[in-house]
């Protein structure tokens, strides 16, 4: 791992461990979505398995956006980003470190969320449960990777929080669709989720590569 990438990553993890800002807001927000949906639909049996994939994806998406909106807040607050722009290291490493850090935060939230999810939705997984260990990280990476990139793009905008949602959600739709279909397929045991997993993988590779190539331009823009 490049040294600067490691440096950025350790810094982001250390700051989050001290403040727990992103983590706590994400956890409570996603728990709220899961509980509210369970009250609204009173899910059980087949119906529960059919909607669970969608609810989990939407809960992850909304929770992540609350953290992604703040992803660059500390860099903007005291112009730390200018000091980072002056450093002779590639901006892509800063981007990748932020993606990895936020990916870890969201993944931890998902792990904590899982038992609540199984209880509130009375879930019994009919398909190959281990495939969820592929689907959820791939979907989360798609969301976080794009989110960090577009959050950086909208840094200089006054309505940056609104702008992020407006740009991110439409671009995330293919990945969201693949994540929901694959999760539902695994939970119900109907159909083969492989195609959707491949789609997620392709989406991640394309968008991560594009973001890495373009990030320096966004980062050094005035």
């Amino acid at each position, binding site marked *: 791992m490049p040294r*600067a990438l490691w*440096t950025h990553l350790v810094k982001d993890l250390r700051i989050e461990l001290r403040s727990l800002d992103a983590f706590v807001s994400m956890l409570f927000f996603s728990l709220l979505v899961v509980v509210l949906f369970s009250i609204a639909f009173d899910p059980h049996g087949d119906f529960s398995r059919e909607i669970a994939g969608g609810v989990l994806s939407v809960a992850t998406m909304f929770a992540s956006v609350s953290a992604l909106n703040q992803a660059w807040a500390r860099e903007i*607050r*005291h112009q730390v980003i200018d*000091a980072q722009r002056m*450093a*002779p290291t590639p901006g892509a490493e800063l981007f990748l470190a932020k993606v990895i850090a936020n990916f870890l935060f969201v993944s931890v939230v998902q792990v904590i969320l899982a038992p609540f999810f199984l209880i509130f939705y009375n879930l019994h997984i009919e398909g190959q449960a281990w495939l969820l260990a592929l689907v959820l990280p791939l979907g989360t990476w798609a969301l976080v990777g794009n989110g960090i990139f577009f959050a950086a793009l909208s840094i200089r905008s006054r309505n940056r929080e609104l702008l992020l949602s407006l740009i991110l959600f439409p671009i995330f739709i293919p990945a969201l669709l693949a994540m929901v279909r694959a999760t539902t397929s695994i939970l119900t045991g109907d159909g083969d989720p492989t195609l959707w997993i491949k789609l997620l993988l392709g989406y991640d590779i394309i968008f991560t590569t594009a973001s890495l190539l373009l990030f320096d331009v966004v980062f050094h823009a*005035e």
Partner: protein
Amino acid sequence: MLLTHPTRPLPQLQQTDRMTAPASEADRSVLCARLDGVSKLFGSFAALRQVTVDLEPGRCYVLIGENGAGKSTLLRILAGLLRPSFGTVTVFGGLEPHDARARIGYMSHAPMLYDELTAEENLRYFRSLYPGRACLSPAESLRQVGLDPELNRPLGQYSQGMRQRTSLARVLLSVPELLLLDEPFSNMDIESARQMVELLAGFRQGNRTIVLTTHQREMAAPIADWVFALHAGRLISFEPGRPTL
């Protein structure tokens, strides 16, 4: 590639004469920075107008002017954080500032540090972003600005003056050849400001160049080789100082 737009003239702006301090020593032959007809527009507002100036190594330049005169914009252009709308900027004998950014230190009004980390953690982080450059250690850098490296408090709990010092320590860390300081004495008591001036005097004697902006001209007087004044984005005077340090 130089930052220039030769086909886009700016007719309403007047061309100023080149303002250059006399280079008397052989080691001053390579200019530290050169601004040639630099203008900066933000929309229709001209923050800088046709600024032309040569900066020699080992000198301290003090930039004065009222609020909105364009001092910070000039520093940000020299730092490579802004590109001029017109004109060219080169540093260290022909490089673009962005390409030479490892050799430039920039301190702004804001501390440019993380509140959640201690001073030592902040400096360790920024030091790692300068691979291959002979940087000071965080402890050395903090001692230079008169701070205790053992102080184990998040920066958010520091006073404004201490943050300002830590910010200077961050800039000194990479041992820059061109030091750009935006209002370095603000939020500082007189004694701390005097100590900072002494520190900067030592820095200048190492043949490094300092450009600083200030409203407290008398504070910077002991190290000012040249004082230049900006008014409404235009360079209106360039006078020799009377450095005593």
